[in-house]
């Protein structure tokens, strides 16, 4: 078959790229080879538009064992324990089939983590939907949430934290990012790099079907009106088989049988075999008729590009083949030697004794195109609107409106669909700033959180990128944990658009600055471009997954008020920045102006100080101040508790709304024992950290003198009803 321009374009390749392929091959590829190139060279696998920017991110420090480049990042948490984690997007498949798209997103990220030898211990997710008034939104919300739950619950890994947001920018392109966190012995970590010639290449897991063919290309092609027709390629998840696969792999990993291992994710058998060969600097030969297939008469093209789920590729020591096979048989899984490693650095495919493909590995991997795409800077928006010119509104009404809005409502409806307790190590469930998962049989726990701030990033990507790293840091500190490292999922629009590319470049620079300053390296991540439709790109939405360590379980903190008459303090300085705030959005539908400034020095000082106060046992409860400002943080402390707060109006305040709704960064609310006030204030003062007593814990009511007094049960109902009525 002659490859026409049309066929090239249908594979998502540019004609110049096709010329490069012919050059590298020194001939014309056949259709199968073209398919393999298209899978390897698309954005999803090659990172061709993002790589040069991602290189800027700090990826090392004393706790990093493995940074980006493997299936997931690995950090050291002491005592031979390692934490392995990563976040990944499944945006496009979830828009097409929300349940299965989200479910397979969870399945995929779990494989990334247990491939490396970790037992997964927690799942997180960040999900963004369109305007609730958009008629697709409800169905997407229901499907995605039950898909995430369906997979995690069945496989038996607790889903413990996440974020759920609504914004019309996602009307035609929702975001579904899933994160998995696993625990391993740091001396028993498995990598994908192949080693040794003539070693067996083994296929394990489910059979290969016709699902998801072209999935990888679809995931990085812009949506158009016809995209609904691409539906049949969506894969169906099988969490039960994944559970068996996970147990089988972990069982096999107890001895030294595995030389290298790689899950089959996007671009299935193609990317897994090429990656293993490329990292190992060798070649792989596969006999495709040996691949276990679900359907009759599958072609080599279909076999190589299928994205059937729950499959893995292993390279195994030939002496261990028999014992390894026994383990997989015990778990009722396929185990087939489909090929071997070869010296010649090539991907060689045979089908019933016929050679069907022969491609240099370098051409697929290291020589794949890289682009330094054109990008435009985003100017810092001006502060045009003057607050005192806006229509006056009663404070209480604004609070009620915001607390019962879709974005600020509590997420019980969501989290009730997730098993948060299975595995028995959930020290703190969702609802707090971070979840805490105990390391099995040890007196320590990891803290995990995911965060994003699309409004800030849209307004000024550089500041937004910085802010979101800081927010993650703060959320970890707010449960008493020391922040260690992050993973990121960068959801952006079309990179061929210089404005979008600029958002990407600057958000990454902002992240870099914050990560460096806070010594909070990036150890894994994922880029999802082409989010949007026909030139309407989504807001730039980098999502950060943060991990920290709680060295003693007793240090655990949350935002639940502990005792009547305790004092409530604000730590960090308030300026009253309302641009890009929840308040401006919900009350005045104002979207302009810059995001709040991020002062990394203050961020670090305040955070370290707060952590120190926690270690000194001076903090009863704590909450970071983020979207919605101080008043929302205080409300949330009451909503989670059986107690209320009586707030005194501060003396030096310019304006009530700015003070309570301002979203200035680097701030925390802490509850302390009244007898400790002097001690706490002295410590804060010595470190030049601004603080103020703003109120006192009391029974039954959340109250601000002269403005409102709300019963906390009522407050809870206000904050809880949106999802149940939607």
């Amino acid at each position: 078959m002659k490859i026409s321009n049309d066929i090239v374009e249908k594979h998502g390749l540019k004609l110049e790229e096709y010329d490069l392929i012919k050059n590298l091959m020194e001939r014309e590829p056949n259709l199968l080879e073209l398919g393999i190139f298209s899978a390897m060279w698309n954005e999803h696998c090659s990172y061709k538009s993002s790589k040069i920017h991602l290189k800027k991110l700090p990826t090392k420090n004393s706790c990093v064992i493995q940074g980006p480049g493997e299936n997931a990042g690995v950090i050291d948490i002491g005592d031979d324990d390692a934490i392995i984690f990563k976040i990944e997007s499944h945006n496009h498949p979830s828009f097409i089939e929300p349940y299965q798209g989200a479910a397979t997103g969870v399945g995929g990220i779990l494989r990334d983590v247990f491939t490396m030898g970790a037992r997964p211990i927690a799942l997180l997710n960040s999900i963004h939907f369109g305007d609730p008034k958009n008629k697709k939104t409800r169905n997407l919300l229901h499907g995605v949430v039950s898909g995430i739950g369906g997979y995690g619950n069945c496989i038996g890994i607790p889903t413990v934290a996440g974020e759920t947001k609504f914004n019309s920018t996602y009307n035609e392109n929702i975001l579904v990012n899933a994160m998995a966190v696993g625990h391993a012995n740091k001396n028993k970590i498995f990598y994908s790099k192949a080693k040794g010639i003539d070693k067996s290449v083994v296929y394990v897991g489910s059979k290969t079907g016709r699902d998801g063919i072209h999935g990888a290309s679809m995931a990085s092609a812009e949506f158009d009106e016809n995209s609904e027709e691409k539906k049949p390629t969506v894969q169906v998840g099988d969490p039960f088989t994944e559970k068996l696969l996970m147990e089988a792999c972990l069982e096999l990993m107890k001895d030294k049988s595995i030389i290298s291992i790689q899950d089959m994710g996007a671009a299935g058998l193609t990317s897994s075999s090429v990656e293993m060969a490329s990292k190992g600097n060798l070649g792989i030969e596969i006999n495709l008729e040996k691949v276990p297939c679900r359907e009759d008469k599958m072609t080599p093209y279909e076999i190589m590009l299928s994205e059937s789920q729950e499959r893995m590729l292993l390279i195994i020591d030939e002496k261990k083949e028999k014992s390894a096979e026994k383990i997989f048989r015990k778990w009722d899984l396929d185990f087939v030697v489909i090929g071997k490693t070869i010296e010649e650095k090539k991907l060689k495919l045979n089908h019933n004794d016929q050679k069907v493909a022969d491609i240099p590995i370098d051409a697929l991997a290291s020589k794949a195109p890289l682009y330094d795409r054109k990008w435009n800077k985003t100017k810092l928006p001006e502060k045009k609107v003057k607050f005192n010119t806006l229509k006056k509104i009663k404070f209480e009404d604004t609070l009620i409106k915001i607390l019962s809005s879709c974005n600020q409502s509590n997420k019980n409806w969501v989290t009730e669909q997730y098993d948060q307790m299975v595995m028995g190590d959930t020290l703190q469930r969702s609802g707090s700033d971070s979840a805490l998962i105990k390391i099995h049989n040890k007196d320590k726990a990891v803290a995990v959180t995911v965060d994003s701030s699309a409004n800030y990033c849209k307004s000024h990507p550089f500041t937004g990128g910085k802010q979101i790293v800081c927010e993650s840091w703060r959320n970890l500190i707010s449960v008493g944990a020391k922040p260690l490292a992050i993973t990121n999922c960068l959801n952006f629009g079309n990179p061929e658009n210089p404005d979008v590319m600029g958002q990407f470049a600057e958000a990454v620079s902002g992240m870099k600055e914050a990560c460096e300053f806070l010594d909070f390296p990036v150890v894994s991540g994922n880029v999802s471009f082409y989010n949007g439709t026909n030139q309407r790109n989504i807001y730039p939405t980098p999502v950060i997954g943060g991990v920290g360590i709680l060295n003693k379980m007793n240090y655990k903190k949350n935002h639940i008020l502990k005792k009547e008459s305790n004092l409530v303090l604000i730590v960090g300085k308030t300026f009253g920045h309302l641009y890009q705030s929840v308040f401006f959005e919900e009350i005045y539908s104002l979207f302009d102006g810059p995001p709040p400034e991020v002062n990394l020095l203050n961020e670090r000082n305040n955070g370290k100080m707060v952590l120190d106060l926690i270690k000194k046992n001076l903090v009863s409860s704590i909450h970071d101040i983020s979207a919605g400002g101080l008043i929302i943080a205080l409300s949330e402390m009451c909503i989670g508790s059986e107690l209320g707060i009586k707030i005194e109006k501060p003396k030096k305040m310019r304006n009530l709304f700015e003070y309570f709704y301002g979203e200035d960064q680097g701030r925390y609310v802490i509850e302390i024992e009244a007898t400790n006030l002097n001690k706490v204030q002295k410590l804060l003062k010595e470190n030049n950290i601004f603080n103020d007593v703003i109120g006192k814990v009391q029974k039954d009511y959340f109250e601000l003198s002269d403005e409102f007094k709300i019963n906390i049960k009522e407050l809870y109902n206000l904050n809880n009803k949106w999802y149940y009525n939607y």
Partner: protein
Amino acid sequence: MLKPLLLNSKKNKLKFAVTVTLKKDVLDPQGKVVQQTLRNMGMITLKNLRQGKYFEVDVNEDNEETAKNKVDEMCKKLLVNLIIEDFTISKL
């Protein structure tokens, strides 16, 4: 001319069966496990099993065609996930 109209509007309960099956190449994890279990239980002549959904729907409509169209609409709007499933409607 009044009478037939009135008669017409006295709607009848019509019963339909809807069967929903997964599209041909779509993975059926449930069917796979059920099939394996049955084979383990000794049903070795079992060649293939696919699992689907079934609905019995009663509608009050004037005539069979309108009724069937209604059921079709229900399938497309809610009962069936057209992305991965096919369906058939039959009169009971």
